[in-house]
């Protein structure tokens, strides 16, 4: 899992982000070094380019990347858990459809 070219395996883009993006494929129980210095044990496989939680995220909480909300959690998310379409939804839906 280690990348020979840079010390970290995942990148965060803003200090307030609650997710990191995997720059290499990560496997269950890998301890991923994140570009902000965090060391996060991933609790499942994280494919290249996919996101995992840096902290616990409650159901209904906004998920932050690039320092801004990219959606809300549709279920509770543990640190190190994959964050994708199964637990994150857009905030752009208007009214009843949300």
């Amino acid at each position, binding site marked *: 899992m280690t*990348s020979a*070219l*840079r010390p970290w395996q995942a*990148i965060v*883009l803003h200090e307030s982000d609650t997710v990191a*993006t995997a*720059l290499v494929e990560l496997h269950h129980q890998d301890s991923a070094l994140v570009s902000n210095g965090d060391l996060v044990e991933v609790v499942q496989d994280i*494919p*290249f*380019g*996919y*996101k995992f939680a840096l902290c616990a995220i409650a159901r209904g909480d906004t998920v932050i*990347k*690039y320092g*801004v*909300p*990219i*959606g809300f959690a549709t279920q509770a998310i543990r640190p190190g858990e994959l*964050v*994708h*379409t199964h637990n*994150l*939804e*857009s*905030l*752009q*839906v*208007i*009214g009843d*459809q949300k």
Partner: protein
Amino acid sequence: MRGYKRADGRIGIRNHVAVVYTVECARFVAECIVHENPGSELWGFAGCYSDPYAFRMLVELGQHPNVAAVLLVSLGCESTDLVRLAESIRDAGKRVEVITIQEVGGTLRSLASGTDIVRSMQVEAEQAPQVPITWADLIVGIECGGSDATSGLSANPTTGWAVDQLLQYGATVIFSEIPELLGTDPYLLARARDEVVRQKIGDALDRARVLGNALNHFAISVGNQSGGLTTIEEKSLGALAKAGTQSIDGVLKTAERPTRGGLYLLDKVGDVGGNQLTHYEINDNDGLVSLIASGAHLLVFTTGRGSVVGSAIAPVIKICGNPETCRRMVDDIDVDAHGIIEGTATIEQVGNVLLENIQRLAGGHLSKSERLGHKEYCIPYKPGRACDVS
């Protein structure tokens, strides 16, 4: 860099002779004429029933400074107003000829006549005056397609860095895809040059949001999601990075051209108040055509999952930061930005490579899609509201 000075004063970086069909029924004959005349280009509109958007696209592409002369190939009974189309393109001061297949007398006579015309247009085009051009003469269109999680980390911010440089050099840059900017509202609005621009951006975002909800579809594809992007907001934030950091100087309507240098946002969302709601853009080629119709001489196309598209009218440069895609699609990717993901290159280093590519392209060098023979275009129906054509 050098270009071709046209009669209307505009400068092109290619010298195309175009064969343009005005209905699907005329397309095969038009294709045969192009086949007989290597170097000529083909595009057209398939519809028999006239459409204001399609008509305007045919006018703008015909008038485009990358085009030296135009042969229109009509069947003869389609409803597009051929005389008005020819006259509108001629307003740019270039040669426009018309072949009506029913009048000329079928396939063989149309092919013979069309071939003679295109050959003479090609000879004339070689005489087009060439002039040195500067960055201030260039209009660069920016498009993304096949985005994935690497796009917002590598190809898009690199393009954004280059866009900031281009603006500093005095070039004009156009970006579009407003439905793919939803969720970036505060950032985008804060970049408006003035209150008028700010209101236009806000209005466009509101219409894009209404459209996305009405169609129950936001501009995020299955492929984007397979590539690690989850929501439209996440895709949008990455997409906005390709527009750099400078003020947005104006908002263009469909087929509207920038009047001076600067950074422009093309709004082709259109009116969403009517009954006929369709996708604002049906694919990336449609997006490229609309940037070209607003005057883009060349296009920078950012991708993550990979794309092969080019254009019949304006050269396309592709930039990609996904290491696996760069390896697999090396023949198609002009600028390899994967070093940014792997930590072996900086955005500035790759951005400089992109600028060199743009400069070479504007000097006549061919992009990879041009060398591979890509000649895409896409002019669909945009019923009713789709694009409130200016």
